[in-house]
C-alpha cells in the first residue's frame, strides 16, 4: 500500500463530489482545448484564405490600368508594357514565394453594340497562374493543353455572356483567329469571372508583342513584410504596385482579436476551474480534519498529509483533464459546426485543429493549475494538529 493508493481510495469515499469536481475540471480542459483548437484552426484557415486570394501584390507597368473595369472605361486603350525580365528579377527577391506573368490585350470588335466595343484577353502562364489562384475551380473542362495552344478558358460571366461551353469556338475578330474553349470556371466573385484567359505565349504570338507583360502577380511568403517589399518594387523603373496588404492586415487583426478573446475566455475558464478545485479540496480537508489529525497521531508528518491531499488533487486533475480532452476531441466536429453558425464570417476548411501537442499541453496545464490550486488546501491539511482530532472527539 502506498500513499497514492490511500489518496485514490479517499476520492472514492464521496463519489458524486469527486465526479462533479472532475467534471468541472473536464469542462475547463474541454473549453481550453476547444478554444485553442479553434484558435489554431481559425488562424490556419484564415491563412489558407489569404493563400487562396492568390497573389497579394500586382506589379504593372506605370500607368497601366490593372482592373478590367478601368481598362474598359478607357475604351480598351492605355495598356502599358514592361519587359518580361522584370518578372525574373522579382522572383529573385527573398520575400517572394512565386510570381506569375500576365499580358492583357484588347481588340476592337465593330459588332459590339451600336458603334463597336472592345474585347479583352488575358494571357496567363499555364504553369504558374493556376497555382496562384487555388480557389479557381472549373465548372467544365480544364486549363490549356499546351503553353501556346489556341485555347481559351472563360470566367463564368464571360462564358455566360458569350454563351460559350467547352468545345465551342471564340473568334478574335481583329486577327480573325479562332480559339477553342477548353474550360469554363465556376464563379469566384472577382473580376476573373468576366475574363477570357488565353495562354501567355499565345497572346504574345497572336498580337506580336513578345517578351513584354502588362502585369506580374507576386505571392509573398507568410512572414514577408509587404510594406518593405512594396518599397523595393517602387525602386524598379516604370512599374506601379498594387497590394492587397489592407486585406491581409484586416485578416491578421481579426486573428489577433480572436486570440485575445480566446485567451480571455481561457483565463476565465482556468480561474473558475482553479476556484472549483480549491473549494472542493478545501471542503474535503475541513470535513476530514479529525481523520487527518489521527493520521498525524499515527506518525504522518505534515509533509505526508500535504502530499496525500495534493495527490488527491493531482488524480482529480489528471482524470478530469483527460476526460475533457477526450470529449473535446470527439465533439470537435460538432463544435466546428456550432462556431460556424455563430461567426459572421467563417473561413473555409476546418475551424477546429486539435493536435496531440495541444491535448498534452492542455492536460498538463490544467493539471498544473489544479496542483497550484491544491497547494493551499494541502498546506491547511498539513497544518492540522493531532490534538485537534482528539479534542473534536471530546466535543
Amino acid at each position, binding site marked *: 500500500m502506498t500513499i497514492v493508493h490511500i489518496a485514490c481510495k479517499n476520492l472514492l469515499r464521496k463519489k458524486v463530489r469527486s465526479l462533479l469536481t472532475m467534471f468541472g475540471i473536464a469542462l475547463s480542459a474541454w473549453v481550453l482545448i476547444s478554444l485553442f483548437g479553434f484558435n489554431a484552426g481559425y488562424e490556419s484557415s484564415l491563412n489558407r484564405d489569404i493563400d487562396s486570394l492568390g497573389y497579394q501584390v500586382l506589379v504593372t507597368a506605370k500607368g497601366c490600368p490593372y482592373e478590367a473595369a478601368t481598362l474598359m472605361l478607357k475604351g480598351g486603350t492605355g495598356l502599358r508594357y514592361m519587359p518580361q525580365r522584370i518578372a525574373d528579377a522579382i522572383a529573385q527577391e527573398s520575400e517572394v514565394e512565386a510570381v506569375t506573368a500576365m499580358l492583357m490585350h484588347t481588340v476592337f470588335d465593330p*459588332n459590339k453594340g451600336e458603334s463597336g466595343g472592345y474585347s479583352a484577353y488575358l494571357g496567363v502562364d499555364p504553369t504558374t497562374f493556376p497555382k496562384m489562384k487555388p480557389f479557381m475551380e472549373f465548372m467544365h473542362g480544364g486549363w490549356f493543353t499546351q503553353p501556346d495552344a489556341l485555347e481559351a478558358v472563360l470566367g463564368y460571366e464571360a462564358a455566360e455572356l458569350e454563351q460559350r461551353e467547352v468545345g465551342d469556338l471564340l473568334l478574335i475578330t481583329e486577327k480573325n483567329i479562332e480559339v477553342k474553349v477548353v474550360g469554363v470556371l465556376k464563379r469566384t*466573385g472577382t473580376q476573373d469571372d468576366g475574363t477570357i484567359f488565353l495562354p501567355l505565349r499565345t497572346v504574345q504570338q497572336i498580337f506580336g508583342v513578345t517578351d513584354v507583360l502588362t502585369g506580374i502577380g507576386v505571392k509573398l511568403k507568410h512572414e514577408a513584410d509587404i510594406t518593405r517589399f512594396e518599397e523595393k518594387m517602387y525602386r524598379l523603373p516604370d512599374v506601379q504596385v498594387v497590394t492587397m496588404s489592407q486585406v491581409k492586415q484586416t485578416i491578421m487583426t481579426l486573428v489577433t482579436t480572436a486570440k485575445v478573446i480566446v485567451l480571455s475566455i481561457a483565463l476565465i475558464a482556468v480561474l473558475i476551474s482553479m476556484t472549483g478545485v480549491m473549494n472542493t479540496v478545501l471542503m474535503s480537508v475541513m470535513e476530514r480534519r479529525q481523520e487527518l489529525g489521527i493520521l498525524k497521531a499515527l506518525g504522518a508528518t505534515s509533509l505526508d498529509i500535504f502530499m496525500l491531499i495534493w495527490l488527491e488533487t493531482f488524480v482529480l486533475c489528471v482524470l478530469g483533464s483527460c476526460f475533457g480532452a477526450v470529449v473535446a476531441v470527439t465533439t470537435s466536429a460538432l463544435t466546428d459546426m456550432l462556431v460556424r453558425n455563430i461567426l459572421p464570417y467563417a473561413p473555409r476548411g476546418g475551424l477546429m485543429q486539435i493536435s496531440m501537442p495541444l491535448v498534452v499541453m492542455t492536460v498538463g496545464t490544467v493539471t498544473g493549475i489544479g496542483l497550484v490550486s491544491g497547494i493551499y488546501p494541502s498546506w491547511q491539511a498539513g497544518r492540522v494538529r493531532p490534538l485537534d482530532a482528539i479534542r473534536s472527539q471530546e466535543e
Partner: protein
Amino acid sequence: MHAIRPAMMLGLVLFSVFGMIEGSFAAVGCDLNDPDRDVARLFPGATGYKTIYVSIERRGGPELLKNIEERLGDSFRGIYETIDVPYTIYEIMQGTERIGYIHGVNAKGQYGGIQVFLALDLNGVIQNFYFQKLTSRFGKELRSHNFGAQFIGLSLKDFYHYNVVTGMLDGNSTAARITNPVPEAEADFKATLRAVKKNLILMDEFVYGNRYLHYCMTCRAQERR
C-alpha cells in the same frame, strides 16, 4: 461584448472579401447598353420608357418553361438558357401613352453570344430589329440595314412556321422572305431566327396575354388547357 463587436465588424469585412465567393448569383440577362440612346433610336417618337423585370421562374415556374419550349419547338439548351434568366422589358412611352416595347434575348452564335433586340408595337408586330452583340466573321452583313428590315412587320404568327431545330421555313409563311445574306454565316443566321421566335414567344407570355397562342400548330394541348 465590446471585444466581440469589432470582431464581428472585421468578420463582415472579411465576408465581403471572401464570402461572396460562394454567394448566389442570378443568370445573365439582356439589357440595352445605353437605354436612353437605344430607345430613341429603335422607337422614333418615344419620349420615355419604363423597365420591367420578369423571369420564367417567377412568372410560372417549370410549367411555364415547358409551355414556352412547346411553342418554340425546342427545349432551352445549354447552361446559360435557364429558367432563372432575368428578362428586361422596356415599356415605351410617348408622353403618358404606351406605344410599344423593346425586348432582347441572348442566343448562342458560332463564335459567341448574340443579343437580339426587337422593338414591338402594342400588338406584338416587329417595328425594329437590332443586334446589340454579335461576334461573326460576317458581322457587317448581318448587321446591315437590309437584313434587319426583313423582320419589320412580322409577328409571332409568322414565326410559328419556322422550325428552330431544322431551320426550315414553311414556304407559305411571310417569314420565308427572310434570307441569309451570307451562306457561310448559316449558324448565326439560324441562331438569330431562333432568338427572334423566342423573343416573341416570351413577349406574348409576359405582355400580350398569349394572343398568338392559337396560331401555334404544335400547341393544341396548351390551348385546350
